[in-house]
């Protein structure tokens, strides 16, 4: 399957004032006009949207596309790897539990504003709020641990903040990661 088979909107923008200003401008305008006019004097903003109907066998492709997006957005290496660990868990959870392994739509919106990346995952699977999932007690001996719960814990630990809301039948799970001042 080629990349053209996916609905991918990928655009970079730099805007002088705010995201809301940049958000209404077209891709071409942003690239050809705003970027050229304001470069060197602006907030950095970049956004990528990946959307696909996925099965368990597609988890790796969704993950690889997300990783590619983070690379294109110049997310520093350590932050990118940690965010990918969290994102992989979130994608896996949606596909295996939200859709019970059946084909379902997953939309990932990756947004970088200055030193912060937000990744929003949207799905229409079973309603599930990962932020309210009980914390994993890692002090419980391995032999006594119940299966499950590790994925959500990894998401928490590899991000700086997570948020969730449910709207119009869809789960919106947002991962927030500070990228710090590390060079890419």
């Amino acid at each position: 399957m080629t990349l053209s088979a996916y609905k991918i909107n990928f655009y970079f923008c730099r805007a002088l004032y705010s995201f809301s200003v940049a958000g209404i401008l077209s891709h071409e305008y942003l690239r050809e006009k705003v970027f050229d006019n304001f470069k060197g004097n602006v907030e950095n903003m970049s956004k990528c949207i990946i959307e696909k109907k996925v099965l368990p066998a597609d988890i790796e492709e969704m993950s690889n596309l997300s990783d590619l997006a983070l690379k294109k957005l110049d997310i520093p290496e350590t932050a990118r790897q940690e965010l990918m660990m969290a994102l992989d868990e979130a994608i896996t959870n949606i596909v295996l539990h939200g859709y019970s392994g059946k084909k379902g739509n997953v939309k990932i919106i990756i947004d970088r504003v200055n030193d912060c990346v937000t990744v929003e995952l949207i799905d229409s699977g079973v309603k599930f709020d990962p932020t309210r999932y009980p914390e994993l007690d890692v002090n419980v001996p391995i032999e006594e641990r119940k299966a499950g719960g590790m994925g959500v814990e990894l998401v928490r630990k590899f991000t700086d903040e997570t948020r969730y809301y449910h709207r119009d039948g869809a789960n919106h799970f947002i991962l927030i990661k500070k990228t710090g001042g590390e060079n890419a």
Partner: protein
Amino acid sequence: MPERIQIIEENRNGIYIMRIGNAVLLDPKMADEMTSILTQSFDSGALKVIVNISNVTRMSSLFFRSFIIAGKKAKEKKAVMAFCNVSPTIRAGFDMMGLGSYFKIYPEESHALENI
């Protein structure tokens, strides 16, 4: 479509080295396959197994779960399973899950061979 799990196995003086070739370990079927391969090695009598994950850059909790199942099997058989060449991010994952103290993790394969 993900590939199958790629493992190169070597028996060096009774120590089984399993070098994983995949860079990304996310596929649920691959996780089941990994569990099966590791547990079967202990069922077949292996007493020392080193899992070299030098090529692995990303791994999901499905594989941590796989390692836990294999670790329990190893304990049951009075065998040992260790890891080597673990990337810093995956190592952090081991530690976050409380697995960093459950499994021996060595920086290099040579260290693992000497100390397991």
